[in-house]
């Protein structure tokens, strides 16, 4: 009797503590996000101001001479999306996962990595594959396959990452 009651109370206590912990951490994360977004907003506003100034300068220089100078042409290229060196298209890559080969399709659009899709992963256990999929999102965010694997699903996420890396090699101009 005693044992059962103690265990039940312990369990309820632990669950309450964990839920409370999660709530606090979540609230803190939200506050951090708000602060970060505000900072980004300020930065964007600064950039807008800078761009406006540059446009005015260019407009003035066009008014005073009929052609853009070599220097200004070089500045222009800073806005080119081709800089990343990736050719548009869908590329395939394969690498060893936990129980077999994992094949991924990496889509590149406008020179940026748009999506990493898993074409086949037959040798992986569903729960592990689900955990490992987050590495695909990280690759898109980082715009490179040089990302950390998912702890707990190391083999599966390594397979996805390495397959994406091989695919990206094909995309380099």
């Amino acid at each position, binding site marked *: 009797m005693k044992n*059962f009651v103690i*265990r039940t109370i312990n369990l309820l206590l632990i669950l309450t503590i964990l839920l409370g912990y999660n709530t606090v951490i*979540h609230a803190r994360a939200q506050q951090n996000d708000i602060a970060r977004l505000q900072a980004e907003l300020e930065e964007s506003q600064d950039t807008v101001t800078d761009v406006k100034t540059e446009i005015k300068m260019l407009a003035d220089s066009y008014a005073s001479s009929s052609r853009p100078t070599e220097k200004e042409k070089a500045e222009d290229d800073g806005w080119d999306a081709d800089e990343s060196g990736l050719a548009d298209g869908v590329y395939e890559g394969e690498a060893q996962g936990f129980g077999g080969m994992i094949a991924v399709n990496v889509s590149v659009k406008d020179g940026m990595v748009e999506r990493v899709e898993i074409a086949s992963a037959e040798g992986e256990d*569903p*729960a592990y594959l*689900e955990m490992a999929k987050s590495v695909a999102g990280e690759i898109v965010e980082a715009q490179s396959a040089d990302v950390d694997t998912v702890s707990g699903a190391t083999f599966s996420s390594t397979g996805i990452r390495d397959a994406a890396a091989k695919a990206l090699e094909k995309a380099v101009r």
Partner: protein
Amino acid sequence: MELHVIQRMPPSKRKKVHRYLRMALQLLFFLLYPSAFTAAFGGVKYIFIQLGISEEIALTPFVAILLGLCIYTMLFGRFFCGFACAFGSLGDALHGIYRGIGKKWKRKIPRSAERIPERISWIKYLVLAAIVLMCFAGVYDRVRGTSPWDVFSMVRAGNLKLTGFLPGVTALLLLMAGMCVWERFFCRVFCPMGAVFSLLPVLPIFSLHRDRDNCVGRCAACTGRCPSSLELPEEASLETPGDCFQCQKCIDICPRGNIHCGLKRLNGNELWFTLLRALLLAAMMWRLGV
């Protein structure tokens, strides 16, 4: 076979049916859902890693499986351990083979050695504590190569690239040797997931109790057959022994039929009841993506 035919069979035959059913179910779970225990324990490790870096605990697939198995265990006791855990089934197979060979060569382990696992069954709580502390401190990655579970999972998946896993391989081989000699050696002494399960409160409706008033003198056949050498609690008790795997061996061997579930009308070894519990577990595992 008709159910009523089985119920009226002599106890010896019924025991065999129960035994073969259990073996069949263990084989089925081994083939269909072999990574349940690693996934569930992955959830435990994840929780402590997140706690250690002050991050949110999200409902990842591993955490979902952990929750599912814990809720199931709070209802049905450690049925998962007794029927669906691939590692436990491996142990049962090894032990069965060892005893079979022992019978042919007329060898047995000496009586005194048989009590050893009982005395050291607290070690699994130590293993659990060590692992979760390392996860909390963020250093679990350093001991990756030592897990016999990881090695077992890899070998089972056909992945034989075991470089860096030498400690794990050694541990696995030693554990397998132990499982040959003592029934459920790993489960009783080292399993951290089992430690988690034995800490949960289990509803008494389906856990096994013994009507001692009706026992024959100093029989203790149930304790003798029990893989965990348990002495089951009395009828009115709310307790559930932490190491009962619901293997039903005690129910089958009792000459007086003294053992039954907290719910008095259930013995606990009825075929439909076993199949129902197995089905529920399998359905849950399928749904959770094990």
